């Protein structure tokens, strides 16, 4: 039936002149053609399309069939014969129809394909699309741009395969598409390169912009989300790593690689911290450029010779600190790990104790170190927490004394985390130790500057009522530092001023600490006595609400467990007190 309808309309149009084609003719053709395709009469359509008498008809009306044709081809994926026929029809359409209309037709199909059909559709249409775009001759920039953004938009809806298994499976076809895309754009890149010197060629300029945009978008997604480390030898190829390599290649050919790597570098003077980030966020390519830096520096350009080997390590760090911050602000593991890797890579280029704060935007660097603290304390991934802390230590190690000093001071005041504070205080101790071993005084780790730092270290956030358990890490570190200072710095030398500050330290730190210890001890001892008297089912656990984690109810604490916790609190207090006593001992005989 459908066949006959089609023959009828074909016959009618064969005798008409092109200008006489009416709207209803188009409609009839489309309906009939669509019906045929839907019912599987592909051979017939192929015949119609190949018939030279129908050239004019096909030229005008053919593009309307793209939708049903593509659906048909995808439906008969397994049928070798039908698929071949379908492709032949597509070829013919590409040959005969107006490129402009065909582009729209093809892109419409890509746009409408969803879920499982997205990648098969794209893969099917890349070749015809490329052919059609090339036919557009001088005015192709806009269409190429449209095509690329349509394709990338579709790809951005698919999840990025991350594990080795996911990459091998490539369930949604993202890997396959990514490998095909560089092939797709290659002729356009070549065209731009050929006319690079010709500044009057507007279309090529436009084309270059579109291609650059494509590269930037690709880096933002999927590349930023992918694990770009090489797979172990002998495993299947890594499509996303290949894609990343190809993107760098394209950027290099377009002569945009080095300029883009440096494009973020503007001097940031007064405003920083969140204001800076707003500026970065408003730069729509912030993510892309951060990914680019990661690819160039950490992955070493995937072996492509892409970056001049003349830049100083401190400049590389300076340039990348913006990108590092962009990455560290995110939550996804793939992004955070890239940020940490990039920072580590930049720092490892430097020798220890070599970095001067003047050589970079130091305030931004302090902000970055606070980002590290946040990741180290709040990120749910243990591996990243550890790495972040290690990277923080690496930062500290690379700076000269002045940088170290300022970092310590800022982090001590602003991190608000006893574990981090303890870590910094230990670092301070190491620095003071190094300074005392030298004969000349350090400008920052002896003398009055040090006192300003010690003031912060030897303080209790809430005076005598400070929660000693919560802050035990920090308090222990501070007491250890104090004990160390009194032992190592002779009273008569007083290079660290700790002796002259003794009164103040006693007043603001040691005495309140002693009081706090007494109070806490008394409180906990009373609690323990309470528990022991009310044996069996714990009193408090009756009052506590129940806690459910991942669908399983957490067992309530037994009275025995509670006692254990309380006892260990007492042990902590004992530890604190023992060091306190030692400090008192050391300072008892002083004349201060």
């Amino acid at each position, binding site marked *: 039936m459908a066949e006959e309808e089609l023959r009828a309309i074909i016959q009618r149009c064969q005798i008409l002149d092109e200008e006489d084609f009416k709207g209803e003719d188009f409609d009839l053709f489309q309906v009939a053609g669509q019906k045929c395709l839907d019912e599987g009469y592909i051979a017939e359509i192929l015949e119609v399309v190949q018939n030279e008498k129908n050239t004019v008809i096909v030229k005008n009306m053919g593009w309307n069939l793209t939708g049903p044709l593509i659906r048909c081809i995808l439906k008969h994926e397994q049928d070798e014969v039908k698929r071949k026929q379908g492709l032949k029809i597509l070829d013919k359409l590409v040959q005969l129809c107006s490129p402009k209309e065909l582009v729209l037709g093809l892109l419409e199909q890509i746009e409408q394909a969803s879920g499982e059909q997205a990648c098969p559709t794209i893969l099917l249409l890349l070749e015809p699309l490329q052919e059609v775009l090339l036919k557009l001759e001088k005015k192709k920039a806009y269409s190429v741009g449209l095509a690329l953004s349509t394709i990338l938009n579709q790809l951005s809806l698919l999840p990025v395969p991350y594990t080795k298994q996911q990459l091998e499976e490539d369930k949604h076809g993202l890997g396959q598409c990514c490998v095909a895309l560089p092939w797709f754009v290659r002729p356009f890149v*070549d065209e731009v*390169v*050929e006319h*690079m010197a010709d500044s009057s060629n507007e279309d090529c300029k436009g084309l270059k912009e579109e291609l650059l945009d494509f590269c930037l978008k690709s880096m933002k997604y999927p590349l930023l989300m992918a694990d770009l480390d090489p797979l172990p030898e002998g495993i299947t190829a890594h499509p996303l790593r290949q894609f990343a390599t190809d993107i760098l290649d394209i950027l290099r*050919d377009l*002569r945009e690689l*080095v300029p883009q790597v440096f494009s973020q570098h503007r001097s940031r003077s007064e405003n*920083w911290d969140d204001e800076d980030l707003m500026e970065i966020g408003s730069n729509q390519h912030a993510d892309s450029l951060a990914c680019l830096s990661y690819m160039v520096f950490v992955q*070493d350009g995937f072996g492509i*010779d892409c970056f*001049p*080997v*003349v*830049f*100083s*390590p*401190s*400049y590389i760090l300076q340039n990348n600190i913006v990108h590092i911050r962009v990455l560290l602000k995110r939550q996804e593991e793939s992004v955070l790990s890239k940020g940490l890797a990039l920072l580590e890579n930049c720092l*490892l*280029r*430097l*020798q220890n104790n070599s970095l001067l*704060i003047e050589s970079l935007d*130091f*305030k931004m660097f*302090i*902000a970055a170190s*606070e*980002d590290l*603290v*946040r990741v180290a304390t709040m990120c749910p991934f243990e591996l990243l927490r550890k790495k972040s802390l290690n990277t923080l230590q690496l930062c500290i190690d690379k700076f000269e004394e*002045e940088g170290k*000093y*300022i970092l310590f*001071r*800022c982090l001590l*005041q*602003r*991190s*608000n985390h006893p574990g981090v504070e303890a870590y910094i205080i230990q670092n301070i101790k190491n620095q003071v130790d190094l300074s005392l071993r030298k004969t*000349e*005084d*350090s*400008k920052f780790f002896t*003398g*009055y*500057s040090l006192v*300003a730092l010690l*003031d*912060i270290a030897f303080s209790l*956030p*809430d*005076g005598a009522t400070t929660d000693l358990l919560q802050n035990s890490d920090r308090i222990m570190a501070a007491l250890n530092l104090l004990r160390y200072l009194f032992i190592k710095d002779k009273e008569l030398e007083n*290079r660290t*001023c700790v002796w*002259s500050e003794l*009164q*103040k330290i006693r*007043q*603001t730190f040691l005495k309140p600490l002693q009081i706090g210890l007494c109070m806490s001890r008394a409180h906990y001892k009373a609690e323990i006595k309470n528990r022991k008297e009310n044996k069996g089912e714990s009193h408090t656990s009756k009052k506590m609400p129940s806690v459910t984690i991942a669908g399983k109810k957490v067992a309530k604490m037994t009275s025995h467990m509670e006692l254990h916790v309380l006892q260990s609190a007492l042990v902590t207090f004992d530890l604190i007190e023992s060091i306190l006593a030692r400090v008192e001992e050391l300072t008892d005989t002083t004349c201060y």
Partner: protein
Amino acid sequence: MAASGLPPPPPLPPWTPEELLLAGGGEAVPKREIARFLQENAAHRFLAEHKLLGQLKNVAKTASKEQLVAAYNRLFETQSFKGTESPGDVVEQVKNVQIEEAKPKETKPQEAPEESPPKYTKLMLKKGDKVNFPKKGDTVHCWYTGKLQDGTIFDTNIQTSSKKKKASKPLSFKVGVGKVIRGWDEALLTMSKGEKAHLEIEPEWAYGKKGQPEAKIPPNAKLFFEVELVDIE
């Protein structure tokens, strides 16, 4: 971390104005106590502004009662207590750190000597115009080839093949401001427009102990460059 932990609540004024200003007598608050209070509670920048840094006994001696009382009042007016410093403040302060106590052993921090012998040599291959020399901060454009001691070329921006497709352009950057290895910064400032030179750079002014493994530069490598300065902006 944006708004990190709250600073501890500021202390309440321990003394009333009357107590402070009672002249002489046992009721008056001694200078030393006021000074101690200030040192314990005021932010570093406040103390610096009011000349209250240093050993307590010195401050108590040198500052007058009026000064101390004025500072005390100002402290509460401006709420400049410890723990209110922003990192910007810290950086500023450290720049202005003045070591108050005259410690006999105190020596100036060792500065790197300004005039160290240059750690590179230059051999002119082609003369420049001898008139246009780049200044610090100018943007220079150059062709270059870099080699290791054994002759391995580790980098170049000169296209050796005749493939037109990959035509390259000169490297451009701001000279004299630390963006490139020191050997380059120093050498280029001595070159005039059009000059081509052969440079041998000691590791200290190149990539030093670390080298750049990905770029095939080993640690402590002496680098050899041929550089042509084509333009200055």
